[in-house]
């Protein structure tokens, strides 16, 4: 008989599978995890403290650095919060541009997740394909705002730049291309038995647990909860588009995988419609005062980022800087359930479970 004994295993903070700087202290008995203690804060930059001395427009670049895989949604959430407070009317063309870049960002983010997740659990080639398609998106976003990741594209009242000539056509052409590639991914990965064995039934939690742990995004929808802020608390112009919310019921890593892959498809649907309805002309910026001063009071808004609910709370004193700014960062909330999921699991499932939550450490640490 094999004798085992408890030992401490430190994973990270520098570990490729954490996609950032995340440390987890494991207490293991043989290969079974008895206790897991996440340690975060290595990327804490004090965005909220810095923001108290910045004007609203100056804060937008800081949001790019939170969830750097889908910075457009971060840009949007702070603009949306200020616009809600000031009851601003956003020009239609700007709204369409915002939706298009946000959905492109969602696809790019899911592609990174798809590629790196499979890389984590041992499949090399999907990563290369996913990053090829992602590169196409990044190039498009680069063309519209001049940056590949830290966009700083949106402003309170609209967007900074109009789409260059032919850009909308590029997005239009991208949709069928991406559909084709997505079918390729499914052929390559989705039916793969090795992959299925790694993800089916792993990292399971129920709907009640998901709600109790404040999970959101695909992490919530994999438990059979039909919830997407784009549909349920519509913001921007999302109510104009016809799309579905993928919901799965098994609550495991496999359901989360399916959920995200289908979300790519739904985002493509939105893109298709947005490109079709795109207004031929019009301003991309509303009439806003040069110095933005939301009225005295507080507001909390939440929108759907690729990782879940991203929210922004502003307490304003009517000055040009916020009195208090707080981001509800989905990765931070989603990561809380990790210690619970890991207990009793085999150590080889650690990466499958962590990867399945889809965190961005820049966002976890704020």
């Amino acid at each position, binding site marked *: 008989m094999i004798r085992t004994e408890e030992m401490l295993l430190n994973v990270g903070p520098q570990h490729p599978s954490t996609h950032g700087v995340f440390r987890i202290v494991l207490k293991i008995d043989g290969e079974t995890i008895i206790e897991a203690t996440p340690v*975060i804060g290595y990327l804490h930059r004090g965005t*909220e403290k810095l923001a108290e001395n910045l004007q609203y427009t100056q804060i937008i670049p800081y949001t790019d650095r939170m969830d750097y895989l889908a910075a457009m949604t971060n840009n949007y959430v702070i603009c949306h919060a200020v616009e809600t407070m000031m009851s601003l009317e956003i020009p239609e063309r700007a709204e369409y541009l915002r939706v298009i870049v946000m959905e492109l960002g969602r696809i790019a983010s899911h592609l990174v997740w798809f590629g790196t997740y499979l890389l984590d659990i041992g499949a090399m080639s999907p990563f290369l394909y996913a990053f090829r398609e992602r590169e196409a998106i990044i190039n498009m976003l680069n063309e519209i705002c001049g940056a590949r990741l830290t966009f700083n594209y949106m402003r309170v009242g609209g967007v900074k730049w109009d789409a260059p000539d032919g850009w909308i056509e590029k997005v239009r052409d991208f949709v069928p291309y991406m559909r084709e590639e997505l079918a390729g991914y499914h052929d390559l990965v989705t039916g793969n038995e090795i992959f299925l064995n790694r993800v089916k039934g792993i990292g399971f939690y129920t709907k009640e647990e998901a709600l109790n742990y404040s999970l959101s995004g695909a992490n919530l929808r994999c438990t059979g909860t039909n919830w997407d802020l784009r549909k349920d608390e519509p913001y921007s112009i999302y*109510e*104009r*588009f016809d799309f579905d919310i993928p919901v799965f019921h098994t609550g495991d890593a496999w359901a989360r995988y399916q959920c995200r892959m289908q979300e790519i498809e739904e985002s493509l649907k939105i893109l298709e419609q947005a490109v079709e*309805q795109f207004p031929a002309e*019009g301003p991309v910026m509303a009439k806003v005062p040069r110095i933005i001063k939301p009225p005295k*009071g507080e507001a909390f*808004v939440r929108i759907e980022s690729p990782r879940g609910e991203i929210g922004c709370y502003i307490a304003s004193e009517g000055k040009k800087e916020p009195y208090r700014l707080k981001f509800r960062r989905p990765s931070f909330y989603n990561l*809380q359930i990790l210690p619970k999921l890991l207990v009793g699991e085999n150590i080889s499932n650690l990466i499958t479970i962590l990867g399945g939550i889809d965190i961005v450490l820049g966002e976890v640490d704020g």
Partner: protein
Amino acid sequence: MTDKQNESNEGLSIEEQKKKAAAEAKAKALELAKQRQAEKAKPVESAEQPTAELELTKEELKKKAAAEAKAKALELAKQRQAEKAKAAETAEPTTTEPELTKEEQKKKAAAEAKAKALELAKQRQAEKAAEPSDTTDETSDDLAKQKALAAAKAKAAAAAKAKAAAAAKAKLAREAGGDTSAQPASDDEKAKAAAKAKAAAAAKAKAAAAAKAKALREAGGDAPSETPAGDDEKAKAIAAAKAKAAAAAKARAAANAKGAAAEPAAEEKPSPNQPILDTYIKVIKEHLGEDVLEDSYINRLSKDVPTLVAKPDTYYKIAEFLKHNDQLRFDYLSEMHGTDFETHFEVYNHLYSYVNRQSVALKVKIDRTSATTHSITPLWEGANWPERETFDLLGIHFEGHPNLSRIMLPDDWVGHPLRKDYEPHDVEV
């Protein structure tokens, strides 16, 4: 609106304020002109739309949006037509205007001229030179100019001279402005700059017109149309001070007018979420007693979210009730954080009920010296890390939290950075 603007004026220099005021006055004129146009162009549509929009379902909204995109091209064409019609009408005022006082005539002419200039600028910005219809616009514009000129000449009676000069000057300004915007503005910045330049030019030209008008009265009626643009600049320089004063006066008038307009709008109708809030309060009072809530209101700025402010000692009780009561069932904690309001701390929770599909904000004010409240982690596991974060950055202690320790900062950090009186601790200083 007025309050906001007044406040935002504080940070500006007098220069900027004047500029802003001038811009505002102009924007108003533009709006007026636009309204008039809209009334002329589509009296039936404008009457129908507001009610129709209210009744639209989501489905219809979608259709509408799609249709709108198409309808835009049509509308643009309509606008152009309307403008032509307007150009024709500029000749008409000659007959009606004698009935007005001089003051009014002047104001009207100036406003119209300016509105037109701005409108043109706007259209050009929107079309960005790419539209082939630009040329037709220009010709119709020229026509308008000629007609207006004729009208001005006709009115060359001694009393109306000043006004004619003003109109002509505005036209000149418009031409000058037109030149700037005719260059293909490649982005927002340029377009904005052009608009600003134009606005400034218009204001100056107006003042110059006023100054010149005196001279012209002596010289003869036809002069204004022949004045070369070069002279303008001198006159501008002379009259710059006057223009500013006039703009300031105008702005004041505009502000007054706006203030009057804003007041009735301030009386808002009750929020659609008011009944929901009333239900919450009723249920809470039924079960927990009359005296558990410190305050409750609809937060207008935050998408009308019903907001409850619990008393420090009833905070946990209310939170527990909100979660477990069969009518309320707030099973999801969406957000939890704290704020230092200097007189007190405040903890803010955004709760959501997936059963009833409703939100509520639950707040509690905490004494700053003790900085202690009850943890709600036993109710919502999701509050675990946010409470640790609040403890770390604000130093609020949550009683009953399973593991209240620093989460973002190192364990040996001194102080809580998000407190307003935080001083960075550095042992070497």
